[in-house]
């Protein structure tokens, strides 16, 4: 038969291919027991041996992964700018003093706005620069993808993503200074409730509207549970896609439900769309309280929506108007260099990087023989209790202490309100710059 | 004056040559027909003359001007008008819109009203159906519209490709009666037709095209009396 030799050859070649693959796999696993290059010591640092004289560390690489391209690049780029500024500032102020004034070096990688990219970026940072600490990646699912890498390589991950579940995964080397989403939702609800009580106004009903990402949903859930806890009636929770072309169906629905309070978790442009549509159709509830770090009170939103967002509030993880010496200084520097006010994305980086600095400082004191060992570094993070200094001065509650899950126990969000076209701090009341306006202008009972 | 002069035309589709050294001419005011069997290259000849196809070699002169290789729309602007095989009226336009679209060229805009009257006079049927969408016309009406559309452009040479194709015998004679009337008005006509007896009746001279070559030419009477033509095309 003609075909016989052909089939024989196919089998032969197939077997050959399988063999090659097996050899390659075997080679991979043979290498496995051999010690993988320890991720901790930076190439510039001396090997962390048991040698009694403390190793001289000159430079510590801080890795950063942010979405620098794609839809979320608007946040990533600001985070990168903020990080460059702070690293400069830390170095100018003497670096890590307990490590003999070691300087910090920032290496930024683009997450390409995708999970593959975030993972790739983390691998690249670790294999090329061996940073002991990585900060990033703003988007929660990118952060989660990255955490898989950092946990494996034992690199501390300081997250600037807000979604709750990141701290519920049992990750060992994970820390987050910023308030998580449910705190944002809760803060928005608390603010409305307490303000109403102060003004002696009775509120009963709430409608929560949120964009449909996991971020929007967790924030909304925080507000939802708080509303139930405060004895309010939640009439409905409406989810919508963040890229809606037209907000009028949502506003129509709100008008029909006619709640006292609207808690809104906008993404970005949807917030402006909702506000302008409300103004157009002449509908205003007692208050529209935004939750979740970006939306109604961003400088861009105010300029795009104009009077439509007057009186709207929004929770933030950072307050650019916080009246402390360091915050004033850094906001001014940021404005001078980049020509705009730092918002959420930059602010989180401000205090997260200073927290990292404090942790390194503490590690130098606690473990002078091997401060950059991941487990030692982790101990230092857990032992932190920051109530003063730049980190505290830029953090809403002025207090950072990590719990066992890596979240800040004293996490807090602040509420800004648009008053006369400017965002001002109205909550917590003890820090407030101005009395909240309630109900908002244009409200008709 | 010579309206059209075609010299040594060679045309190919890809690698297949279909016309070999084709030469013929049409005098102003004359009516000439090209006859021949199916697949002889008659339509190809008209397509090449009207600029839809580009020849491999050869020369096409139109009223003394070399127009070889010009695109169809430029030739139309110079007064060449082809009524293509299968009519090709614009199906989604009304009869009147079909005629108006034909007066797009600047040089026939001013005479549009006049020409419109002329074609409605020639084809009163079209006048009745002026607001009807063209795709609802019958075959004969569509052929009349196609000719009328060509007439709107003030042609200095009117080329007709198989006007009798797909028409019932009564309609064929109707169409040829209108061609005859055009001829009487002094329109220069180049006709390609399989229906040889009627074609010879409405033309002054004739060419016979076989297998891509001109095999015979002369006045219509001469061609009609040729023995081979009588046997093959006239069936006598």
């Amino acid at each position: 038969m003609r075909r016989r030799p052909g089939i024989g050859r196919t089998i032969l070649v197939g077997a050959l291919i399988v063999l090659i693959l097996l050899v390659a796999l075997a080679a991979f696993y043979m290498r496995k027991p051999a010690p993988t290059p320890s991720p901790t010591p930076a190439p510039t640092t001396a090997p962390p041996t048991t040698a009694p004289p403390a190793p001289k560390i000159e430079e510590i690489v801080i890795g950063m992964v942010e979405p620098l391209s794609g839809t979320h690049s608007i946040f990533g780029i600001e985070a990168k700018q903020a990080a460059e500024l702070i690293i400069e500032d830390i170095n100018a102020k003497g670096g890590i003093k307990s490590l003999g004034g070691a300087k910090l070096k920032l290496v930024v990688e683009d997450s390409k706005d995708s999970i593959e990219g975030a993972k790739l970026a983390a691998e690249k940072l670790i294999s090329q620069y061996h940073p002991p600490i990585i900060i990033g990646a703003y988007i929660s699912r990118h952060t989660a993808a990255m955490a898989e890498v950092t946990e494996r390589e034992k690199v501390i991950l300081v997250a600037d993503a807000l979604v709750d579940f990141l701290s519920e995964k049992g990750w060992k080397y994970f820390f987050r200074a910023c308030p998580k989403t449910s705190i944002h939702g809760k803060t928005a609800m608390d603010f409305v409730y307490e303000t109403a009580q102060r003004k002696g106004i009775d509120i009963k009903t709430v409608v929560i509207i949120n964009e449909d990402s996991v971020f929007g949903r967790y924030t909304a859930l925080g507000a939802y549970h708080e509303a139930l806890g405060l004895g309010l009636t939640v009439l409905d929770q409406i989810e919508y896609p963040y890229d809606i072309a037209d907000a009028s169906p949502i506003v129509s629905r709100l008008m029909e439900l006619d709640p006292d309070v609207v808690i809104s978790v906008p993404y970005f442009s949807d917030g402006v769309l909702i506000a302008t549509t409300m103004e157009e159709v002449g509908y205003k509830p007692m208050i529209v309280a935004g939750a979740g770090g970006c939306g109604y009170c961003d400088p861009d939103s105010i300029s795009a929506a104009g009077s439509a967002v007057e009186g709207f509030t929004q929770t933030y993880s950072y307050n650019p108007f916080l009246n402390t010496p360091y915050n004033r200084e850094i906001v001014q520097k940021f404005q001078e260099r980049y020509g705009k006010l730092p918002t959420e994305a930059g602010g989180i980086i401000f205090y997260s990087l200073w927290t990292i600095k404090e942790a390194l400082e503490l590690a130098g004191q606690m473990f002078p023989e091997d401060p950059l060992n991941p487990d030692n570094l982790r101990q230092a993070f857990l032992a932190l209790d920051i109530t003063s200094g730049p980190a505290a001065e830029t953090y809403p509650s002025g207090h950072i202490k990590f719990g066992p899950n890596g979240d800040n126990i004293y996490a807090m969000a602040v509420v800004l309100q648009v008053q006369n076209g400017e965002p001002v701090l109205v909550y917590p009341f003890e820090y407030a710059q101005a009395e909240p306006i309630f109900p908002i202008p244009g409200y008709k009972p | 004056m010579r309206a059209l002069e075609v010299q040594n035309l060679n045309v190919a589709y890809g690698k297949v040559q279909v016309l070999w050294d084709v030469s013929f001419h049409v005098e102003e005011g004359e009516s000439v027909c090209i006859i021949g069997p199916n697949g002889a290259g008659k339509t190809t000849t008209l397509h090449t003359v009207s600029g839809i196809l580009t020849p491999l070699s050869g020369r096409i002169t139109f009223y003394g001007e070399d127009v070889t290789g010009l695109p169809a729309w430029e030739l139309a602007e110079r007064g060449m008008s082809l009524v293509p095989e299968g009519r090709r009226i614009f199906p989604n336009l009304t009869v009147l819109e079909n005629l108006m679209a034909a007066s797009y060229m600047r040089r026939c805009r001013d005479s549009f009203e006049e020409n419109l009257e002329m074609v409605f006079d020639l084809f009163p049927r079209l006048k009745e159906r002026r607001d009807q969408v063209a795709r609802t016309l019958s075959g004969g009406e569509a052929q009349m519209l196609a000719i009328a559309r060509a007439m709107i452009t003030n042609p200095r040479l009117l080329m007709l490709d198989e006007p009798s194709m797909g028409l019932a015998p009564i309609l064929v004679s109707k169409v040829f009666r209108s061609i005859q009337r055009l001829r009487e008005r002094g329109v220069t006509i180049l006709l390609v037709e399989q229906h040889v007896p009627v074609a010879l009746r409405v033309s002054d001279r004739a060419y016979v095209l076989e297998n891509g070559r001109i095999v015979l030419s002369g006045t219509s009477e001469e061609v009609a009396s040729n023995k081979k033509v009588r046997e093959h095309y006239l069936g006598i």
Partner: protein
Amino acid sequence: MLELLLQNLVNGILMGCVYALVALGLALQFGVMDIINFAHGEFVMIAMYLVFWISLYLAIPGSLTSLIVAPIYFVFGLVVYKLVIDRIVGTYPLAQIAATIGLMVLLRNLALAAWRAQPRGLQYEVLRGSVTLGPVVVPISRLTAALVSVGTMLALHWFLTHTRLGLALRATSDDMQAASLLGINVRRMFALAFGLGCAIIGIAAAFIMTFQQVNPESGLTWGLISWIIVVMAGLGGVSGVLLSGLILGMVEALEITFWDPRASLAVMYSLFILILWVKPRGLFGRR
């Protein structure tokens, strides 16, 4: 519930008119040149940015910029036609699709590089407020956009049926070769159709910007909506496009009223597949 339905239906009709105008440019190009421009949505997005900047720098309301943007975009259309479309028209269909997809990727990311992902919206606009008609509140900006859409469509319809140039365009769309035999320069008609299609996008963009914002990703949504309308309308002329737009707007409104606002795009595209399935020549198509 009835009031909400009524309100949403009115919104749907108004948005439907705007959708139809956005799709009209694509429908014109498709009808005349038999080419699907995948970058259509990106054209809309770039036009919206143009409206934003012109309105910002000249300090005029977005609706007025249509007078400037439409001619600019007409020229833009001619340039794109000369550079890209002219080379691919009438070639292998895959090449046509691929080239316009390349254009789409290019424009979207150029916009991202130039303007970042930040949404931009216009603040100053004369068309504000709303009128109340019984239980229904109609925002003036959307009402104007819908009226302008219908007006533009009527104007285009008049142009296509009552001018020689318009007739020549339609003739080209019906039968390219026959048109060229009547002295119509087909390539010039293509360029004209492409330019006109873009000018219509310019008008649409100006009025969309009175109530919408733009970011580099907005193109995808507008593109998909336009494609659905073109498929639905088939080669049904201006009225087919308008009707298809209205149907789409109302389907969206009904979906939002009775199901989940998050699924509206999914429902719209399912409609698209359904039409391809049962009536591939479109609901109003003739050929």
